[in-house]
């Protein structure tokens, strides 16, 4: 734990700075009420009313997010393997190549099926 303790100091310094400057600017800055200024910015035209709860987000982003999670997990498996690579020998290599292959198969599938097309 003593390795992580110094980071708390840095978090404190950074947080004090960030919160402090937000607070200070709200104290120091002028306050002139202006109804138009508080509207959403849309290049000067009437703002589009926002749906309650933020509305829906295209399914495309979920697909990207899911693919990301799969690959991120793959990377997390790769790291300890890479660190101990010299001790694992041929078995470790073959095991990881098999694993990479198994992840690549659905990746190819997604690619071919148009899951990686953006427009």
């Amino acid at each position, binding site marked *: 734990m*003593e*390795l992580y*303790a*110094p*980071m708390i*100091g*840095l*978090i*404190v*310094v*950074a*947080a004090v*700075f*960030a*919160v402090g*400057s*937000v607070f*200070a*600017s*709200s104290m*120091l*800055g002028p*306050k002139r009420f202006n109804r138009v200024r*508080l*509207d*959403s*910015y*849309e*290049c000067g035209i009437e*703002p*589009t009313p*926002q749906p309650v709860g*933020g509305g829906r987000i295209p399914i495309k*982003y979920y697909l*990207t*997010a899911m693919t*990301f999670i799969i*690959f*991120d997990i793959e*990377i997390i498996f*790769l*790291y300890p393997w*890479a*660190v*101990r*690579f*010299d001790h694992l*020998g041929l078995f470790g*290599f073959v095991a*990881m*190549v098999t694993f*990479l292959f198994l992840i690549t198969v659905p990746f190819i599938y997604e*690619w*071919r*099926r*148009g899951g*990686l*097309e*953006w*427009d």
Partner: protein
Amino acid sequence: MIAYPALAEIRAVDQVEGFGDDPWWIIAIKCLAIFVILVLMTLFTIVFERKVVAKMQHRVGPNRVGPKGWLQSLADGVKLMLKEDIIPKAADKIVYVLAPIVAVVPAFLIFAVIPLGPEVSMFGQTTRLQLTDTPVAVLLVLAIASVGVYGLMLAGWSSGSTYPLLGGLRSSAQVISYELAMGLSFVGVFLFAGTMSTSGIVEGQERLWYGLILVPSFVVYLISMVGEVNRAPFDLPEAEGELVAGWGTEYSSIKYALFFLAEYINMVNVSALATTLFLGGWRAPWPLSAINDGMFNEGWWPLLWFFGKVIALLFLFIWLRGTLPRLRYDQFMKFGWKVLIPVSLGWIVLVAGMRLALNEGVQREELMMWGGGALAAILVASFVIPLFTERRADVDEDEPSAEPEFDPFAGGHPVPPLPDQQVPAVPVTAGGTADETTESEAREEGPSA
């Protein structure tokens, strides 16, 4: 049967030599020093960027505030501090205020595990020029960087406005896409260093920088680091042509400045990480490192090399911004997913295979031959395969084969034709009836056919 390690053994692994025994006041000094360095680097980089870009465009750049204009960014920061703090009516107040803080705090943290130099003596205490190190330091960097993304996303979401929402979504999609390539580029380094601790990785580069052995990894990292910090040519989340200022549209005053600060600190962070992982960290470049038995690699000298390398990389960022136009969103995502990730995966397998062969006692020359052969084969394949796939893409059965016919009222609005489309001859009948009949005919045909 698998032997499960006892807790004490796990504790023993969770150590890095030379860290974890600093007195509290040294830690305090280091924390403050990192904070000050990062803020100064930000102020410097902003002016540096403006001056370099100005030179590239034959302009003068900032030259009024302070000596030769070098205090311009400081003045801007103070000015922003004194500006009115607007919270839009539609915003989610708490998240809106929290977002810049969430963005900026993690940005400061990454430097905690970056080694700035070797052991030095500080007020009679020997200590390393690095706040702390852990056995999984690089993983920690990735984790902290991901938290920073929340800042941008929450900013976009909480503004309650269209442009910021799109910008926030884009930035998160972009960052996660390029984080994969970035994460994969580290694997080669770990393979050679045998550790994830940053100080260990710098130690491992005593003879040869990893950036020279692992050129593809380094190139992938350089590209993905630009994508990761949303800089030109990958600055789509704040593409002013289409999204005004992206996720930052509704922000003003110091909150906007904090995002700005976070962005520039992140530039410094990824440059510092590149220096540490690929460019030998604080070690002096080759001819200098040989002088006088490595005198330039000791004491406070390494700070110079470290920041020299970081500033060189920052210059690269600025150079890119000054010369390259912004990518289109689909090109950008395609590049990340279809080029960087497959290339990284292939490269990892290649490097691991070569290293395994060396470990198993295969001769280096033989290996070079086979490796070169494999590389050549891949190169040839990469030229040949697109020839086939692109030709086939036109007749791919999954895609609509025929160009959709031009519909002058697509989506209920009158629209102009796209480049390949023909404008149909205008029927010379009384207004509107022709359109309706064709549509109803089409509807009848649909299900029965």
